[in-house]
């Protein structure tokens, strides 16, 4: 009897145990699935990043190399139409294109006729004549003499050397004719073609010739714009955050302000561009395309980010610090400036740097204020026309010349580099100066 009972109980227990085990198994399985979803999301994200980076890098790396051609240049006064090398006007207006043409024709003496000459001269960059001019203006004593000069090759020649133009294609589908190929091969055999690091890309402004186009103008423009943005948005943002956190009474008005700051952070950036056009350019009459206006517009855009991060940094300072300082007789302002602000500073700086990184990558608001423009000259100040890095990317991506595809990716790489450095700086500041309580 009792044994039977015991048996029954045991059976019951074992059934329960089995059920429990089964349930436990499914719970573990569920947890594993949940983790797997997480891992899959991360893998998908990483996958997209890898695809993005590989396309950019595989297309963009070739932008950092360029091809030069060596020419035997003769500074012939008759070709240049110069009789007096000390006359600046004559030097400026001389026919340097003629010198380059003569140099090419003397290298390939069997070329004659208009069409063939055009094809031949199209193999070196338009910048060759500017290079010749620079040389002669710097050294007027060269007049009448010759020298060997490395000049930039045309973008098509460069693309051929990089294998982007396929020489196996039939002539009609190729940008370089068979005739041109034979000249290029002849140069190649004579060692008169050279691959060099593309310094032009880092020192020039924009250009319509891909081989002479560079990002320096855009980098300088970005720099001026960000300086204005930083100088305005950091003090204003920090002051607003301190007042709202430490001094402002908690009432309806401050609530409304708080809600609006959060709303402002979500406003599409093009709206700030429209505002900038209406207020800064049309009303205040500031110049179009200028970094000062760009900086003002981007200030409006980054202010909410900075205020929000500065406020949370201030809030993270424990009340005990304030209480201790007050207990030692510090005034409210002393508490804030001597204790709270220094402790909150790392958090504020992090927020500011992230805001700046956002501003660096912004194009939409700049469209309205004329910073999406073709600008060759390197800007020399806050009111000179200029453009910024992401705008340069956008402009190049829309250019018909094939070589700009590589330039676009090259510029993206530079932009990504700057963004990575800024974000690393933010991480570094946080790690180094952050205090935990």
């Amino acid at each position, binding site marked *: 009897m009792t044994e039977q009972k015991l048996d029954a109980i045991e059976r019951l227990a074992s059934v329960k145990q089995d059920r429990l085990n089964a349930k436990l198994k499914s719970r573990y399985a569920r947890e594993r699935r949940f983790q797997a979803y997480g891992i899959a999301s991360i893998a998908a994200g990483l996958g997209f990043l890898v695809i993005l980076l590989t396309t950019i890098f595989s297309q963009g790396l070739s932008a950092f190399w360029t091809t030069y051609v060596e020419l035997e240049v003769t500074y012939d006064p008759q070709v240049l139409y110069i009789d007096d090398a000390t006359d600046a006007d004559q030097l*400026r207006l001389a026919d340097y294109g003629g010198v380059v043409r003569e140099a090419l024709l003397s290298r390939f003496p069997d070329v004659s006729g*208009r069409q063939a000459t*055009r094809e031949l001269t*199209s193999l070196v960059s*338009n910048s060759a004549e*500017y290079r010749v001019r620079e040389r002669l203006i710097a050294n007027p004593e060269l007049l009448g003499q010759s020298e060997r000069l490395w000049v930039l090759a045309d973008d098509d020649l460069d693309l051929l050397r990089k294998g982007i*133009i*396929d020489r196996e*294609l039939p002539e*009609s*589908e*190729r*940008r370089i004719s068979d005739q041109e190929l034979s000249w290029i091969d002849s140069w190649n055999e004579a060692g008169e073609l050279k691959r060099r690091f593309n310094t032009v890309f880092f020192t020039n402004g924009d*250009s*319509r*010739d891909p081989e002479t186009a560079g990002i320096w103008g855009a980098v300088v423009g970005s720099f001026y714009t960000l300086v*204005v943005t930083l*100088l*305005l948005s950091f*003090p204003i943002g920090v*002051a607003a955050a301190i007042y709202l956190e430490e001094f402002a009474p908690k009432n309806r008005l401050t609530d409304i302000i708080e809600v609006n700051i959060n709303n402002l952070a979500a406003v599409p950036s093009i709206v700030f561009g429209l505002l900038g056009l209406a207020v800064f*350019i049309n009303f*205040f*009459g*500031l*110049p*179009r*395309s*200028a970094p*000062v206006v760009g900086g003002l517009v981007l200030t409006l855009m980054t202010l909410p980010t900075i205020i929000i991060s500065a406020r949370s940094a201030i809030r993270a300072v424990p009340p005990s610090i304030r209480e201790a300082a007050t207990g030692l007789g510090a005034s409210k302002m002393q508490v804030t*400036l001597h204790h709270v*602000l220094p402790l909150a500073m790392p958090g504020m700086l992090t927020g500011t740097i992230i805001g700046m990184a956002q501003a660096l990558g912004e194009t939409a608001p700049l469209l309205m204020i*004329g910073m*999406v*423009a*073709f*600008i*060759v*000259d390197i800007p020399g100040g*806050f*009111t000179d*026309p200029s453009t910024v890095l992401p705008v340069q990317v956008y*402009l190049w*991506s*829309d*250019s*018909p*010349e*094939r070589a700009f*595809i590589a330039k676009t990716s090259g510029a993206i790489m530079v932009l990504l580099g700057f963004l990575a450095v800024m974000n690393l700086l933010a991480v570094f500041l946080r790690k180094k100066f952050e205090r935990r309580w």
Partner: protein
Amino acid sequence: MKKTMIGATLVAAMAASLSGTAFAEARDQISIVGSSTVYPFATVVAERFGQTTSYPTPTIESTGSGGGLRLFCQGVGESTPDITNASRRIKASELETCAANGVEDVVEVLIGFDGIAVAQSVDATGMDLTKGELFLALAETVPNPNGNGLVENPYETWSDIRGNLPNTAIRVFGPPPTSGTRDAFVELVMEEGCGEFDAIASLEDSDEDKFEEVCATMREDGAFIEAGENDTLIVSRLENDPTALGIFGFSFLDQNSDRVKSISVEGHQATFEEIASGSYPVSRPLFFYVKKAHVGVIPGMEEYLAEFTSRRAIGSNGYLVDRGLIPLDNAEYARMKSDVDNLEPLKEL
């Protein structure tokens, strides 16, 4: 204490830098806005101008023809652009706006022509379409193929339109409505193509608004795909999809001849010779407009005009022709050149 000092200096510095810019000195570089089609040509001239003269390089914004003319007609003075590029002629209404805002004398400069290519991948078998067939393929409403009246576009494959065309789905990548290329394509292909059909041509007399609407509305069922302003993108899509067609400017075709080729429209390919001779039917004039009041005020205006209208720029062997511009013939060039030399303002259209 020290921190308040720093704060005060910062604020003062900001105020100083701001007030300094408010009284910025006179603008010394030319400011140009306008068409994205003329942009690749104007930038080449501007760069050369900057390199060969002592003036700074002009700044050029690509705002589209309409946007450019709006900025241009805002008034006279340093804060307004000096020149606007356009891939169509200025409209009478725009000229009126200009005059109303004090822009009295506008000099028109015709620089050349641009072909609009209908292109496909080099791997595809060539096609030869008429404007009427392009209209049938791309319009929202077309004449009913088996009867009277108009119906929503029923054509799904090219062979539906004409038996000997390929039996592939109609897929055409083209520019969005904000683009001058789209305007020109509608005007030169769609509006002319639709006139070939009696069912629509009869509308012209009875209901002109409806006629305009039928002729200018592109289909939205996925056969015509707006690919954004970026023509590079259309080229790479065509390369990946040999059955698709794309619509873009001749210079993109010229630069990408190893990837895309033009189809024939009315029996003519979009080649340099065909466009220059006027036999290729889809080409349009390119202009720029100059504010006469700014000539002599903004430094370098005369020289820029001289450079852009010189034979070495837009003559039949000029450097812009290498970039895909179709040059003017001699008589047109002479007329344009004398107008520009005398700064002859545009009277009326």
